[in-house]
């Protein structure tokens, strides 16, 4: 239960049957850090978290807490807190007793248990529901109980498996800020699993992007956002337009691309030479209707609150996702453009 200065995952691998859910994860978590594990569904995020928690034995590799080998220590002795993806609330205990469970396990004085339980319940806004059983709560309410139950222990490492995925947008924003605040004020170290890049970017000090059980990139939010290591990370970081093109010319890192009815200037992320087949990655919000640029035909328009999400097609039939402040009509022809610094070029 004491703190540590770092936690090291060393070639952590986990197989299910003959399929790797996680292959050789190397990661050092420093005390006080907020790490987000980010990746598409099924990429092994929960598996990594469970290995760290001690709930899944490793197939290979080891986990170290400073000088201590941790992967042979049972979960209850690691002193970590965890929020499960499926809540895993104790169905026979009231909300209050779910939350106080961990405190009671630590044999804290009754007064302290009550006080801290109350605090935690208040934190997740469940005061009214404290006496209910989990089965009587809505999905989001259950999720909040799970958060309170883990947070109340002020553990040295908090593991969270998509804790906000069932909350409504407003509450999610608030809880997000709350989690970050708790992380800082309690001096927690947090590993946070999410599939929501926005959540990961705003919360984490460092992000680990996983795909198919493999690490694709580790870095700060800015690094990931601006310099995804490859097209997969780019894809996942919101570069929704992944356009197969050809390099026409290259000047330093600035390259001119052509293909699919488009001509674009972009920034090379990999080494590319004229004539290479490449993938240009552009976010919808970086591809904007403008006075001059590439002509496209609008197909689908979705309302997004402040702006409209547009799906359009180039003359050669390539689909583009872009944003527009005006509502274009389906069938309308518009021209779009993107700043070269916002167009990343990956070798394909």
């Amino acid at each position: 239960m004491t703190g540590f200065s770092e936690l090291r995952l060393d070639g952590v691998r986990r197989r299910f049957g003959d399929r790797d859910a996680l292959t050789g994860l190397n990661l050092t978590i420093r005390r006080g850090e907020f790490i987000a594990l980010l990746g598409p569904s099924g990429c092994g995020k929960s598996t990594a978290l469970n290995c760290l928690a001690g709930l899944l034995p490793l197939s290979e590799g080891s986990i170290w807490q400073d000088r201590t080998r941790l992967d042979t220590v049972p979960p209850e002795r690691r002193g970590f807190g965890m929020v499960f993806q499926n809540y895993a609330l104790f169905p026979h205990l009231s909300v209050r007793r779910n939350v106080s469970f961990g405190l009671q396990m630590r044999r804290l004085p009754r007064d302290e248990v009550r006080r801290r339980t109350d605090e935690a319940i208040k934190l997740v806004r469940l005061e009214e529901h404290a006496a209910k059983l989990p089965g009587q709560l809505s999905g989001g309410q259950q999720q909040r109980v799970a958060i309170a139950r883990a947070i109340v222990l002020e553990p040295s490492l908090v593991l969270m498996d998509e804790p906000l995925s069932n909350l409504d947008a407003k509450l999610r924003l608030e809880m997000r800020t709350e989690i970050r605040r708790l992380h800082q004020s309690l001096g927690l170290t947090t590993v946070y699993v999410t599939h929501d890049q926005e959540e990961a970017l705003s919360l984490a000090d460092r992000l680990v992007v996983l795909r198919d059980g493999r690490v694709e990139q580790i870095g700060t939010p800015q690094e990931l956002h601006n310099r995804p290591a490859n097209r997969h990370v780019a894809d996942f970081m919101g570069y929704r337009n992944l356009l197969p093109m050809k390099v026409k010319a290259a000047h330093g890192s600035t390259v001119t691309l052509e293909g699919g009815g488009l001509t674009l200037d972009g920034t090379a992320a990999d080494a590319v030479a004229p004539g290479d087949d490449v993938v240009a990655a552009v976010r919808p919000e970086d591809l904007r209707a403008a006075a001059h640029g590439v002509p496209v035909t609008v197909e689908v328009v979705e309302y997004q609150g402040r702006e409209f999400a547009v799906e359009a097609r180039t003359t050669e039939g390539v689909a583009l996702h872009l944003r527009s402040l005006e509502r274009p009509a389906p069938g309308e022809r518009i021209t779009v453009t993107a700043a070269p610094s916002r167009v990343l070029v990956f070798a394909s």
Partner: protein
Amino acid sequence: MSGGTALRHRLAERGLDRQLLLLVPGLACVLALFIYPFAYGIGLSFQPASGGVLGAYRAFFTDAYQRDTIATTLGLSLPAAILNVAASVPIAYRMRGRFRGKRLLTTILVVPITLGTVLTAEGLLNYLGPTGWFNRALLGLGVIDEPVRLTNNYWGVFFSLVITGFPFAFLLILSYLSGIDPTLERAAATLGAGRWQRFSRITLPLLAPGLATTFCLTFVLAFSVFPSAVLVGDPAGSTRVVSIAAYHAAYEAYDYPLGSAIAVIMGVVELIVVAVVLGLRSLFYTGSTGGKG
């Protein structure tokens, strides 16, 4: 809408709808095949040859030799049922996970339910008897100087109740246990609960309703013990259980009213024990145990 629909709607709100028809076949069987004959049996118990309406009951309760059979029976069946349930829990608990040979071990553990009273009784008499293998082995090892007597007394009957009752209890409890989502224990582990606490605070309470049912069933089986109380017990003395008294009255003395009265008394005692246990059961949580369906 039509009155019919409205009525159905109102009934549905009170929990009465066509789904309840599913109860009908079961209820019909019980009413026709049990309640009617049973009422007849009760009626019979109030028509003794002498002593008025309650004569048979009075005869039972005023005779210490008869009355004591209740205590004797409880003295056998309660410990046996408790042991069967209590022993099944840790074994079943250890057997939840996956391991090689699990199926074989499970099968072996439930084999005794196939033994039946007679083989069990014969086996106990042969195996635990004065010249049986058990005593021979102990004598051979020098643990004892003369054969220990484990049959034709309390212990013989007790063992037979354990052998026939344990697999029942084990099979049921193993099944109940596997219905509890293991993620819950994992959650408890991350909250600092050790093995024992995970078991006692999470699994056990979730298992409690199943335990209660299992206890009731094994208790009822043990309470109406008859053949083994005679065969491996001491049917005139320390294992003169209440069913022997009923059997004696009905089938040896042909005093059917007394036999019925004793049987009714048996039922009432069982009912009291079961009611207490099920009453305790309702104090526990009885809903879904986390299997996400």
